Structures are given as C-alpha cells and as structure tokens.
C-alpha cells in the first residue's frame, strides 16, 4: 500500500511540471504572432519606417514575459 502512495507522490511531482510543457512554445508563438502582425501592418501601410514591426516585436517579448509570470504565479 505504501508503494502505491509513493507512486502517487512521484506522479504529483511530474504532473506539476507537465502543466508548463506548452509554456515555451506559447511564449514563442506570442512573440512571432505580434511580430508578424506588425510586419503585415507595415506592408499594408508602406510607411517610411517599419514602426509596427518594431513595436510588435517588443510588445511580443513583453507580452510573453507577462504571460510567463501570470502562468507561473503561485496558485491562490
């Protein structure tokens, strides 16, 4: 019976990590989505300076970090 409990404890250990498995990809996705969004907007607007690509990529990085902190903050 105790071995079963040990197994449960071990499982609890890795399950808490599994939660964060998609985190890296999601952060990457956020950066890429906002950067490409800005790039697309710049392509439509033909401005002299690619403002939205720059702001998009920076916002993406900021957003990914905010997302990271939000997802990993201690549970209530």
């Amino acid at each position: 019976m105790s071995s079963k409990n040990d197994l449960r404890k071990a499982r609890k250990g890795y399950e808490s990590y599994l939660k964060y498995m998609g985190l890296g990809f999601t952060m990457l996705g956020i950066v890429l989505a906002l950067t490409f969004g800005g790039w697309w907007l710049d392509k439509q607007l033909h401005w002299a300076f690619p403002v939205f690509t720059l702001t998009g990529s920076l916002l993406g990085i900021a957003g990914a970090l905010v997302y990271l902190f939000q997802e990993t903050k201690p549970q209530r």
Partner: protein
Amino acid sequence: MGASFAQHADSLSEHDIDHAVEHLNAEDVFEAAPTEGDEHGDHKFNPGEMIMGHVTDEHGWHLWGHTSIPLPIIAYTQGRGLSIFSSGHFEHGLVAHAGYMLLDGKLKATDAADGTAAHEHLVNEELTSATYDFSITKNVLAVFVSSALMLLIFLTVAKAYARRPGQAPSGLQNFIEPIVLFVRDDVAKANIGPKYERFMPYLLTVFFFILINNLMGLIPIFPFGANVTGSISVTFALAMITFIITLLNGNRHYWGHILAMPGVPKPVLLILTPVEILGVFLRPAILMIRLFANITAGHIIVLSFFALIFIFGELNAGLGWGVSIFSLLFTVFMSMLELLVAFIQAFVFTFLSAMYFGAAIEEPHHH
C-alpha cells in the same frame, strides 16, 4: 525537438540532395520520352524522395518496388461533377486519367486526354482550385483500419465486463483496464476535478486513437505503417475537437480570466488580454504541431538510417553491407524509443486536453 530531428536528417543526406536535384532534371526528360527500360535502375537512390514518400500521404499504398495497392480517387470539381475511379489508372502518377492527374502526390485537374504523360504544364489551375479531393488515401484507409481495430478491442472488452460483472478481468481486459484507470485517475480526475465524467468518453477515445495509430505507424507491413498521427491534417482535426470542447465548456470564470484577469493593474491588462486571447488559439496549435512533429521526426530518423545503407551501398557494395549492421542496430534502438514516444505523445495530448477542459470549467475560488 522535431525541427532539430528533421535538420539532422537533412544534414545526413545533404550531399545526395545535390545529386538528387541534378537527377530530377534528368528524370523530367525521361518521363517526356516514353522509354521505360530503367527496370534495373540507372536510377540513383534519392533518400529525400524515399523518406518523404513514406512520411506523407499518398493516393495508393506502396508495398515494394513497383507494386502498390490502388485506392479509390473521389474528386469533386465545380462544374464537372463527381468522379470516382481507381488510382491504378494513374499508373503510379505517370499519366492523366478522367481529367485528373497526380503531381508530387497531389491531385490536379487537367484537360489532357487519358494516358497523356503527367506534366506540370498540363495543370488546369482554374479547375484545380475548384477541385475537392475526397479520395480514400493511404492515411484515410489507415484511419478506417485503426477505427475497426478500436471497435474490435473495445467491443470485446465491453462484452467481457457485461458477461462477467464484478469478477477479475481476463484476457484483453487485463491490458485495457489499467490504461483506462490511468486516464481516469491521473489525467481526467487530476486535471478536471469532480466533474470529470463528462469528458471521459472524449479523453479515452483520443488517447487510444493516438496510441493505436502511433503503434500502427511503427509496424512496417500493410495495412500498417501509414504515418497517420504524423499527418498535420489528422492532428489539426484532433486539436480542433479539443479547442471546440474547451470553448463550449468555458464558464464565466474562464472567460473573465482571459478578457480581464482579476487583480491585475489596468496598464498590464492592455498587454495581458491580447496575449491571453492569443493563448486560446496557440494552445491547440501547439497541440497539433507537437504530435505531428514528434511522430514525423521518429519516422524520418528510422528511414534515414535505412537510407544510409543505400547511400553507402551505391559507393561500394561491401560498405553498404557493413553500414547495414549499424543501421539495423540503430533502427532497433530507435524503434524501442518510438514505442515509448507512442505512449508519451498519446498521454501528453490527452493530459493537456484535460488540463484545458479543467481550466474551462473551473469554479471561482474565494479570493
């Protein structure tokens, strides 16, 4: 991880891809002139073509050499109507039939007469864009086979429970019961909580569908060996179902957390809300890509080891035999690893789906 595997496979055969490109042009000339006397193969071995041929879907099931099982072509073109015929009429994709032809395995509409050698300049782009390909392809057939297998397994097991209620499991039950309990206790209950029962049918179905198709993909003999879970269309459909179930079950608490996370200052919300909305779409997208990339990468690696035999064999027959020993050993090792991956990927997909459902139906705690 998948991308790096694929790169690895590329670098293995970079030298030969150069050769393949030269060869490709030569082949075009071959096809234009109706000389088919290359049975013994002035054909140089093309690893890229061999690997992609095995990993991607096709209109016919290649067995060996020039032998393949033709599969039904079902195509609907607006203005032309429905056509159903055997892919055998295409003669391995070499000729046109009934107004269609195959180019790189894709069905294209053409105006060329039956039996004309298939070529890019014969494609009728306008009609092709109005064509819907409903063909029973290799992957579709493999899904039929796996569905039949699942029905067989689970109807047998269900009957055993009905026949011997309350008794110890026997036979197939012994194999299935622990997995079902694992999905219930460690995946569904752990992530969804007390209301897990509603999601059990989907979670169990998706787990066993992915597991059985992963395992079937490792058996290289017909009717197995199709790369079903390594097809992005299949993983797209699976991720889409998870996505839709999550959206349909999302409660006020879930949407509140996405649109305006409580307890977060307003300026941060300006960034966080778009990011959370992006996350809603990114999560299923990652689910789709992870399964596709992991399974396809496994197939590509095993095929690359086999390709090495022939790459070295072309240089020198003895070298080919020598390399084949190492290739076989590595293939056995990789296949063992793939058995593990087959379980892990089925588990991960199910686990993350359950996690998303759990987040969608979570009730608010006291703040």
